[in-house]
């Protein structure tokens, strides 16, 4: 049947994916002083559970949880001595595991630090997060190679990143090395997740065999920086391959996204810039032989949302005054109404972004604005789901269930 005229006139918009980035009391350094903030509850399960339920109420695809193996600092290379900022953070994977059983649909993408955390440990932790969430786990890999963080660990053979090498011609090599190591790291995660075939557990009473060991596989990974034998101690997780994400601000991390990730978080200035970044990632996929794989590119935005633009501007101004400095970010900052933000998302989406990871300026206020104002606005425009359509995170992202690399065809 030929399409009707109206369908030509009003093309069905492509729905976008939405994630929220949870970080302490919000991304603005003075967010913890807002009237609705609960800074005394930052280290309790209840705080994170409420935020996750709020995000799930808004039908968001997933939430991310920031992580670090050092105390937060306004300085990118070393600790500061500030007492007016939120300091201290719990392990993000454990927060996700603690909260997942209290939710049913939303995905969990905690951050892990590839420079220090053993890939064998992280692989089984994320596989287990996938079991406890019934298929809603992902992981964002972050390099985390600061020198002061390295001083917390005994691993000395790999050079950390220091401020004094910023002017060093060797810096580029060090950065490339750390991202190459991260690519090896993701390769190990993925091979370990596939190291058990799906029906390896047979429970064959007649032969006394619990598993068919021919369906378990050593991964025998050997790279420039480390080797891992395998197989995993944890059977293949429900999603087969939990979702892998990475954030990038330039060509080197874009290559990591292209080579290794399912979802890339990027920080474009505008729609045209977004299109350039996506093109670079697509080219990277092609040279890595991954052109057939879905790699969703999400735009990052810090958001301050209120019912009127004036209210949002005034709130942001108040936060800045309290922080003593104008808030700046690696991502663009949006201050205004949900409708205005919806316009912007639609504009940037045209630059072939699959979705957005929004960083709420203050919690819970800006998350509530996302779920109660932005989401209905996007739904009205046909740009966002009106009910969860899948049980797994891969399902929500349209990634499908991947075949096991070790399974006989």
């Amino acid at each position, binding site marked *: 049947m030929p399409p009707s005229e109206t369908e030509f006139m009003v093309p069905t918009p492509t729905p976008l994916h939405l994630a929220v980035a949870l970080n302490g009391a919000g991304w603005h350094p003075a967010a913890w*002083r807002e009237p609705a903030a609960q800074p005394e509850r930052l280290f309790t399960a209840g705080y994170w559970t409420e935020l996750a339920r709020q995000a799930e109420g808004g039908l968001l695809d997933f939430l991310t949880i920031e992580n670090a193996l050092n105390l937060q600092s306004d300085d990118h290379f070393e600790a500061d001595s500030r007492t007016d900022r939120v300091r201290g953070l719990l392990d993000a994977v454990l927060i996700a595991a603690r909260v997942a059983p209290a939710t049913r649909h939303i995905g969990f993408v905690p951050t892990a630090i590839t420079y220090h955390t053993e890939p064998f440990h992280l692989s089984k932790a994320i596989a287990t997060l996938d079991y406890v969430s019934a298929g809603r786990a992902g992981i964002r890999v972050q390099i985390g190679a600061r020198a002061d963080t390295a001083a917390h660990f005994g691993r000395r053979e790999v050079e950390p990143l220091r401020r004094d090498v910023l002017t060093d011609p060797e810096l580029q090599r060090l950065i490339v090395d750390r991202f190459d190591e991260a690519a090896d790291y993701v390769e190990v995660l993925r091979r370990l997740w596939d190291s058990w075939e799906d029906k390896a557990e047979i429970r064959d009473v007649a032969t006394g065999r619990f598993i068919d060991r021919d369906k378990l596989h050593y991964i025998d990974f050997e790279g420039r920086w480390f*080797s891992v034998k395998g197989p995993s101690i944890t059977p293949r997780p429900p999603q087969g391959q939990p979702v892998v994400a990475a954030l990038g601000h330039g060509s080197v991390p874009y290559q990591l996204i292209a080579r290794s990730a399912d979802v890339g978080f990027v920080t474009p200035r505008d729609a045209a810039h977004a299109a350039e970044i996506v093109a670079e990632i697509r080219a990277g996929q092609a040279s890595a032989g991954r052109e057939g794989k879905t790699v969703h590119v999400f735009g990052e935005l810090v958001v301050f949302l209120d019912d009127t633009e004036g209210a949002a501007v005034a709130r942001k101004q108040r936060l800045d005054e309290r922080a003593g400095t104008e808030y700046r970010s690696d991502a663009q900052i949006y201050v205004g109404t949900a409708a205005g933000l919806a316009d912007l998302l639609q504009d940037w989406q045209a630059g072939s972004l699959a979705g957005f990871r929004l960083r709420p300026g203050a919690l819970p206020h800006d998350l509530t604005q996302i779920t109660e104002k932005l989401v209905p606005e996007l739904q009205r425009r046909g740009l966002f789901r009106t009910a969860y359509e899948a049980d797994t995170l891969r399902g929500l992202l349209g990634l499908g269930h991947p075949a096991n690399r070790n399974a006989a065809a």
Partner: protein
Amino acid sequence: MTKQIHLAAHFPGVNNTTVWSDPAAGSHIEFDSFRRFAQTAERGKFDFLFLAEGLRLREQNGQIYDLDVVGRPDTFTILAALAAVTEHLGLTGTINSTFNEPYEVARQFASLDHLSGGRAAWNVVTSWDAFTGENFRRGGFLAQGDRYERARTFLATATELWDSWRGDEILADKDTGQFLATAEPGTFRHKDAFFDIAGQFNVPRSPQGRPVIFQAGDSDEGRDFAAASADAIFSRHSTLDAGRAFYADVKGRLPKFGRTRDELLILPAATFVLGDTDAEAAEIAHEVRRAQVSPQTALRFIEQLWNTELSDFDVDGPLPDFDPVVSDNLISKGRASVRQFAKDPVALAGEWRARADAGNLSAREVVIEVTGRQSFIGAPETIATTINELVQADAADGYILVPHITPDGLAPFVDKVVPLLQERGVFRADYTGSTLRDNLGLDPITPLRRPGETVTARAAS
């Protein structure tokens, strides 16, 4: 004074104690199994749940061992998830000090303690084997003789990290804008033969101050380590005589470390088989043992002791008539119990043969007899009486029970034995505190009182 009994539930492990062939046996991986197991333990007012750990799949004859349950989830992750579906139950995880770093483990336990409202516990184990090390980028670098030293310094270092926050640093005063009372919370510097680290720990002090510390070693060094630093020992000695000897020995070591008898609990691992009558329980226990030692499993045990592959061996016939192969190269890898076999395999094989001759037993029947009779077998009344007598006689402070059926094997104990112990007033009718230390009757930890520091301070005075 009548002692109060402590009870804990060990999630069935990846060894032949666990009978996966029983039609009632469920998944060892699905979260629902862990949820049911934990909620059953909490219904029984148990002190805590216990998880073992293994970081490489076991092998025998160069192949992955396939006769026992194989595969398990990540310890920390499953405990954090269980915190969501329980309220009082302690959450004890076995975590290896060899294949981890103090900063990260301290951070994970402090996080688990926050996220569970003060219910975290750590069973500190060590390992030196390069076999397991092949899964880790830092490798299996530890010399065997260094393992307790590594564990001791690892725990001392982790304790420094936990104590680097005193608990009064966070003001979160919205009016003054002061989040922190101090500019450099969590500052630490530690240097010894194993760790040379410095910086700031990034998790504020957790509800218990630090996790409850368990230790499982049985050697002289292991016992000293526990007496110096642990809150509880996960021991193997569940019988009256062995239990009393171990109990007296370890509790006797406490004064030398400036500690009192109440500061360290002795909690042996124990299995149980319940029946309506003692006779019925004995019958079931016999069948369970046969299921635990299938013909194939019996053959693997014999190979482990003889340290050689015996492919055509008939386990319904006699034991091998030749002596075990004595070698440092063991055919079984990743299995701690094999080290017991390897101490003096020729003598142990002689003992097995003597058992066979005395009872006219086949090879499999010998393995059934010598490798793990259940700790408690009987009607509920019998088991309640036995456990209470053992605890009152100082053979233990309580037991860590491991059922042979996952996940519901604990339910009969909870439903039938626990009420009898409660009636006798030797087990809690309900939880009275909120933390695991409360469940265990251990005093709260103040920032100034930590194991290493206490020892040094008291020894010096």
